[in-house]
């Protein structure tokens, strides 16, 4: 009987083609959008983790409250001691200190007079210790446009935009003006070792990257840092683990009424990411729901039309001794078969598209020139296991449900009534 139904589906294109197309498209969109959004969020989390928030981040309580002012006067002290403690308490994580600072970037001419000036967004990370993973983590090496990484103290990388605008080349000197941790004026000259472009205007604007030891020296921050970032060694963010690390750290080291005591924050609770991610997750759910609903309605209608068109077939089958319950069952089998075909096709195409965009991301950097948020320049989709079912089952269910609903009208009718309708 299944074979009989299958033949019917294959031969009667009007019975199968439209539903298969509708399901394929719906499933494709569901799979593709899910993979795409997952990818976008993963990229955003990843970028945020690497540049700003870590998987977890330690700051002093009061630094945390005024973070965007880069208040280094509130920086963490006794950093080496904290790091030693962290490394022994949480050996499965990697801990790094960073200093963020603001200031003015000054480009002198041959006579030492100011030739150009601009605001600087300084980042000091560990570039010089032999085992440092920071250059890799922030993708610095690959982002260098001209020149190379600082090889020794006193060297700096500066934003390629800035360098081009003011004609600064690797080898030139630049001076940074700012204030030390204790509030006195500081200025220090660096040799430009290279220029850098991350492709994200948020990161590139006025960027200057120096080694952490230089920053500690210049800013009077010996054994101090703006923040300590923690990374899971596997490289991916795990909110539950981050939560437990945070809870345990804070209960051991954070003193509630001491504004200079360290406090740990997990990625999700920084920079409004929680909101964004929750909204993203909800959106995926709503999207799938809307697709399924829309598909169900379309399929219900095609089911109704198909049912009408095939009234005489059902009439004959009744007369040949099929009971209406069985006819209803075959309608559902048919829907399941068609749903399977459509869902498989849609899932394959959706996975294919996601895979393509996983390997070849789309570069949005030109669109995000003026975006004041940290966004990765290139977005990729992610092929995750859930993509195999996230569209598949909704597609199957929509088709089956749509036809079960449409066919129920037939099932409810009296045999005699059904048969009558075939005669005219």
């Amino acid at each position, binding site marked *: 009987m299944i074979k009989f139904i299958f*033949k019917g589906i294959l*031969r009667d294109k009007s019975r199968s083609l439209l539903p298969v197309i509708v399901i394929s498209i719906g499933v494709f969109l569901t799979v593709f959008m899910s993979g795409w959004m997952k990818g976008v969020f993963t990229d955003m989390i990843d970028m945020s983790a690497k540049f700003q928030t870590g998987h977890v981040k330690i700051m002093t309580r009061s630094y945390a409250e005024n973070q965007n002012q880069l208040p280094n006067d509130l920086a963490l002290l006794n950093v080496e001691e904290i790091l030693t403690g962290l490394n022994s308490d949480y050996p499965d994580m990697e801990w790094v200190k960073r200093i963020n600072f603001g200031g003015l970037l000054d480009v002198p001419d041959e006579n030492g007079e100011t030739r150009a000036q601009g605001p600087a967004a300084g980042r000091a990370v560990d570039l010089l210790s032999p085992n440092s993973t920071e250059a890799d983590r922030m993708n610095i090496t690959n982002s260098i446009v001209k020149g190379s990484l600082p090889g020794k103290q006193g060297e700096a990388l500066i934003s390629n935009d800035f360098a081009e605008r003011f004609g600064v080349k690797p080898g030139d000197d630049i001076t940074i003006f700012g204030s030390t941790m204790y509030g006195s004026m500081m200025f220090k000259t660096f040799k430009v070792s290279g220029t850098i472009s991350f492709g994200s205007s948020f990161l590139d604007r006025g960027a200057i990257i120096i080694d952490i030891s230089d920053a500690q020296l210049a800013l009077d921050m010996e054994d101090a840092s703006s923040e300590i970032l923690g990374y899971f060694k596997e490289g991916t963010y795990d909110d539950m683990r981050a939560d437990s690390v945070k809870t345990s750290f804070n209960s051991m080291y954070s003193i509630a009424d001491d504004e200079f005591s360290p406090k740990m924050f997990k990625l999700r609770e920084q920079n409004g990411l929680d909101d964004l991610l929750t909204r993203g997750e909800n959106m995926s759910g709503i999207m799938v729901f809307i697709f399924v609903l829309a598909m169900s309605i379309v399929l219900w209608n095609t089911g109704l039309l198909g049912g009408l068109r095939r009234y005489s077939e059902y009439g004959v089958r009744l007369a*040949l*001794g*099929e*009971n209406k319950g069985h006819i209803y069952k075959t309608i559902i089998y048919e829907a399941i078969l068609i749903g399977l075909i459509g869902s498989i096709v849609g899932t394959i195409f959706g996975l294919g598209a996601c895979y393509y965009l996983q390997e070849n991301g789309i570069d949005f950097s030109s669109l995000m020139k003026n975006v004041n948020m940290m966004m990765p320049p290139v977005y990729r989709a992610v092929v995750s296991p859930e993509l195999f079912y996230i569209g598949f089952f909704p597609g199957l269910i929509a088709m089956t449900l749509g036809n079960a609903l449409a066919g129920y009208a037939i099932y409810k009718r009296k045999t005699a009534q059904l*048969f009558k309708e075939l005669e005219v």
Partner: protein
Amino acid sequence: MATIKINDLVKKFPVGKGHFTALNGINLNFDKGEFAGLVGPSGSGKTTLLNIIGSLDTPTTGSTIVLDKSISELSNKQAAKLRNKHIGFIFQTYNLLPVYTVFENVEFSLLLQKISAFERKKAVMMALEWVGLTDKAKSKPNMLSGGESQRVAIARSMVKKPEIVLADEPTANLDSKNSHHILQTMKKLNEELNVTFLFATHDEKVMQYLNRIVSLEDGKVVSDEIKT
């Protein structure tokens, strides 16, 4: 022992607030092997009566016993089973399933029974042979003439070797030559396999072949003649 026994059969259809009486006190018996017809003007209740005998509809009051089964007491499934195994239908408009081949159309009622593919094939080919269409087994219904289509419908009704075949205006869409052809085919099957045929018809050509003519008017039997 009669194959079909109808006692005081009344069939009313709800119409608006009241109802319309389509059959009004029918008493009839048909024996095995009869080649009988219901005749009468349009609206006299012929189709209604055939549908009740065929267990596609039920009496309002009175009883209809077909092959020792009371139609009004059958469940949906039991009625379906009765049709599937013992009653064949032939319609004015052939009603072949357009998607399936001639072979598959004839095979359908056997698919509903638990019969092996081999047995099915044997039965279908024999039924097609009865109607002289073995060479069209693989054709689709839209490639057949009206006469051929109706012969496929006869094969479809006969393939399960039913006790009763109900034919509602089987010749209405056929020309005279094809009408005679299919009537001869049915008459032959009636004689060779001793199948009871019951027609509903206005067609003089059909009446020539019948050996019993029951006339209906306004839902009542007005005459019942046996020809010799």
